[in-house]
Every structure is written in structure tokens, then in C-alpha cells.
């Protein structure tokens, strides 16, 4: 069929040249070489100091606290986020407005201020008590005894994260086709059962990818707790350079660890996303593809392709 001579063919077409790409590559190569030269030849990096502190005891302890804070704040944030998201979608006007106000407040004020605020809570409330407003208190404690810097950090980061997770989870819940809820209702499921058995599992693939990003952000956001004298990774590095004045090498030590954690999380995110994408027909992306081209909201793309499947 293709043997008849019809003249020129697409198969043998001359490919377009891309001179701009070669030029750009050359410029980047020169800049990269200069940067490497800067890293290697500038003695002020003090790479020997970096190496000696990288696994020092106080840095590792700081790293442990950073990781622990990340996990605890995310757990609180996710739990709170689910409650707030369901609250914002609730038909109960009180629950709805309380949830919306919470999200408004915690998203609308800087995390740093929230942290310092909790740290100084005793200045506002010298004593915490549980009782009837204007009536007797059943239970009373000294605020400073309860709100330790660690608890202030957990509250500041966790409560703030709850507001962001609420928006992510709400978006995920809204992405599930309303027909799924109706199908559940018509089978005789209660609202709670529809949420747990039908909506949430399907919302997961819209919720998980941005939550991965939140975890990565949280690793870095924990550095804020250094302002309330909690010895996380950054504070531990600062504590050392305040004594030795090796500021740059120790900041590099901290950066190396932050990068190491976030890189691991990035790999983990790929596998978690692949797991939650399994019930869509979307072709699996290899890990290397995932690294190179990451759509900003992969969940949306998955949603539209699954709609086509119907």
C-alpha cells in the first residue's frame, strides 16, 4: 500500500532544529561550572566543619525533634482537618460557621505569631480552668505548667495545619461525584456511613497528593519553633554557631538534613500517590517521570479521566 511512490513522506521528514536549546544548555553549563568552582574553592564554606558537625550528637537530637514535631503536628492537622472539612460541608449552620471561622482565623494569621502567642499564653491566661462561665470552676491549673515550649510548638503548628488540611480535605470531598452520595443514601446508608464508606475513600486520591506537599512544608515549618527556644534541627545548629561563629557551615549542616528528609518524603509521596491512583485507568507514571513532570494537581487530571471512563 505504501509502496506506490507518492513523493515525500512524514517518516523521512527533516526534524526541526532547536538552536535555542543548545545555547541555553551552554549558558547553564558555564553557570554550573562557576557554582561548583565557588563551592570547592571558597574556603569560607569550611567543608571540614560541615562534615564534623553533620552527625554530631546535638544535631541528631535536633533532627529527632524536628521529625517528631512534623509527625505530631501533621497527625493533629489531619484529624482536625477532617473534622473541619466535614463541618464546613455540614448542613448544621452553627457547625458550618464555627468551622469556617476557625479556618479563616488560622489561615489568616502568620504561623510564627501563632507559635509565639501559644508560647506566651500565660500572659493572657495565667490560669487554665474548666468550669461554668461566670460560675464555679471544677479544675484549675497554672498555664505555664501546662503550656511548655514543646506543647506551644505542637499547638501552634498542629492547629495551624488543621486549617490548611481542612481546605485540602474539603476540596477532595467535593471532587467526589454527588451521585455516589445518592447511591449510598438510596441503599439505606446514613450520612456518616456514606462519608466513611463511600466519599472519603474516593476523596483520598484528591487529598493525598497535596497532603504530601503539606508534610514536606511542615518539615521546614518546624524550623519556626527555634524562636521559642525549642532545640529542633535549626536551633541546635544555631546553638553551635553562636558559640563557634561558624554560621555558614552549620546552616549548611541544617540544610543538608532538611534536604535529606524532604527528598525521602518526595520518594514516599510517589509510591503513596501510585497506590491511591490504582482504581483509575490513568497509566502509571514511572518514578523518573514523576520527578521530571509533576502536574500541579494530579488529582484533577485523574478525576476528569475517570469521568470519561463512565
Amino acid at each position: 500500500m505504501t509502496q506506490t511512490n507518492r513523493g515525500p513522506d512524514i517518516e523521512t521528514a527533516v526534524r526541526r532544529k532547536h538552536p535555542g536549546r543548545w545555547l541555553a544548555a551552554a549558558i547553564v553549563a558555564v553557570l554550573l561550572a562557576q557554582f561548583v568552582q565557588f563551592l570547592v574553592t571558597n574556603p569560607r564554606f569550611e567543608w571540614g566543619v560541615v562534615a564534623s558537625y553533620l552527625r554530631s550528637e546535638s544535631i541528631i537530637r535536633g533532627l529527632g525533634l524536628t521529625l517528631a514535631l512534623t509527625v505530631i503536628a501533621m497527625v493533629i492537622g489531619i484529624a482536625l482537618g477532617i473534622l473541619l472539612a466535614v463541618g464546613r460541608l455540614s448542613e448544621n449552620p452553627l457547625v458550618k460557621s464555627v468551622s469556617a471561622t476557625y479556618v479563616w482565623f488560622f489561615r489568616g494569621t502568620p504561623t510564627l505569631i501563632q507559635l509565639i502567642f501559644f508560647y506566651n499564653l500565660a500572659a493572657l491566661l495565667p490560669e487554665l480552668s474548666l468550669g461554668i462561665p461566670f460560675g464555679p470552676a471544677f479544675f484549675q491549673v497554672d498555664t505555664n505548667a501546662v503550656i511548655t515550649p514543646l506543647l506551644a510548638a505542637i499547638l501552634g503548628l498542629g492547629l495551624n495545619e488543621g486549617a490548611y488540611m481542612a481546605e485540602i480535605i474539603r476540596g477532595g470531598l467535593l471532587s467526589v461525584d454527588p451521585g455516589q452520595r445518592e447511591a449510598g443514601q438510596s441503599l439505606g446508608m446514613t450520612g456518616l456511613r456514606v462519608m466513611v464508606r463511600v466519599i472519603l475513600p474516593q476523596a483520598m486520591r484528591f487529598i493525598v497528593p497535596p497532603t504530601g506537599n503539606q508534610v514536606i512544608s511542615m518539615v521546614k515549618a518546624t524550623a519556626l519553633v527555634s524562636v521559642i527556644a525549642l532545640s529542633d534541627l535549626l536551633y541546635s545548629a544555631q546553638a553551635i554557631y553562636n558559640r563557634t561563629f561558624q554560621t555558614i557551615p552549620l546552616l549548611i549542616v541544617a540544610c543538608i538534613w532538611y534536604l535529606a528528609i524532604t527528598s525521602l518524603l518526595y520518594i514516599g509521596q510517589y509510591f503513596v500517590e501510585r497506590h491511591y491512583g490504582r482504581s483509575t485507568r490513568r497509566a502509571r507514571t514511572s518514578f523518573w517521570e514523576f520527578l521530571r513532570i509533576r502536574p500541579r494537581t494530579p488529582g484533577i487530571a485523574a478525576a476528569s479521566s475517570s469521568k470519561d471512563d463512565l
Partner: protein
Amino acid sequence: MSVNTIPTHPGAAPVLQAHSVCKSFGGIEVLKCIDLEVVQGETVVILGPSGSGKSTFLRCINLLERPDGGRILVGGSDVGFRVSGDRLHELSGKELARRRSRIGMVFQQFNLFSHRTVMENLTEGPIGILRMNKKEARERASKLLAQVGLAGREKAYPRQLSGGQQQRVAIARALAMRPMLMLFDEPTSALDPELVGEVLNTMRDLSNEGLTMVVVTHEIAFAREAADRVIFMDGGVVVEEGTPAQVIDNPQNPRTQAFLARFADHQ
């Protein structure tokens, strides 16, 4: 408006009794005092142009839409209410869910749970809501699948099935709850033309077996063959009601005549 029940099933108990059901959306009256009574074993097909209120009426029956007025009884009790004194009181979510479980519904878009296999779709209700024994529920699900012509597809996910197959699974899922009444909301409207027949065949079998069904559809041929009674709705009212021979083959009302004339070419 009077209830013109034609005694196709003389002496059978009423399964659905709808009286003066009204519903407005944003000031537009979609349903204007609809009355309908369906008895045990009857198949009622509701025809009518788009926007005539027929789907809304169907969704009012299991309270996916709350009517503004009137009363709907299924199996002799209000779907979402209990009677106390001379007033209706809204039921709790749990009680409403229990009453809804007796009414099966098949949707235009199938609405199978896409994260669950066919088997899990079919057992979710019986195990989770009716608290049926798991083994029993699975055996029954397999039988229902065979009944709708999909034996052996238990492990498939909905997206792996064609539209017609998905809709038949959706019918089986509703049947698994042993409903006293089945509602079909344009069950073939989202299907490719060549897949419509398999779903209609399944529905025809169910009708012949004596399932009580209310079907909203545009399939005139199905209405003629399977319906005991045909309702023609337009503008939120029942315009004409009778046997298929009366309504489809010899319509009296000009609006019914105009609607059916558009299908005449295809018959």
C-alpha cells in the same frame, strides 16, 4: 386531580401511594400536585418531555428530594416521617436510612461505587445495612449477577465494564436489598445505543417476574411492552394516564400526541 388506578392487578396491595406531591425549585413549580398509586407487582412507566418533572417526582419517592407538600407512602408508611397526632414529624437520619433501604433506585449515571469491585458493590448494602451473613450475601450477589447476565464478573471494577454492564450491576445492587419498590431514573439515557437493549431486557425480565417498578424513560417501545400502566407528564402535571394501548397508541391529549409524534419515526 383524581387517582385513576386502572385495575391491572385487581386486589393487589398498594406499594406506593403519592398524594398531591408538590415541589418548587427557586419559585418554579416543578411538580404541581402529583397523585400516583402503584400496586404490588405493577410496572408503571412515566413518559414526558425533558423538564416535565418526572425525574424530580421519582427522586421525591425516596426523599432524595424533599417534596414541599403532599404525602408519599411506601409500603403503607411515610418514607421520611412518622405520624404523631395529626402531623408528620421528620425522622432521624438513621430511621430515614432504614426506610430508604426498602426502596431500590437505579440512576442514569449508574453511580456504582468506583473504588469497589462488583462483588463489593453488591454486598455493601446487604452486609453493612441489612447485617446479612457475609457468605450468604456473597452467594446471593453471585446469583443476582447471573440473573442480570454478568456471572463471573465479581472481581471486576466498575471502570472495567461497559456502560450497559455497569447499569446491570447497578440493578443487581439495588435488588440485593430485596426492595419492595424499584425506581429507575432514565436507566438507559447515558448508554450508547447498542447497549440500551441489554439493560431493557433485564428490566423486562424483572417486570415479568412481578417486581414493583416505577420507570422514568424515553424508551417508548419498552413502555409499550413492559408497562402495565403509562403516565404521561408535562409541565409538572399528569396529562394522561392509562394502559400502553390507551396512552401510547391512542393518546387523547394534544400534548401527549405532540410528544409521541416526535418518536413516531423511530417506531
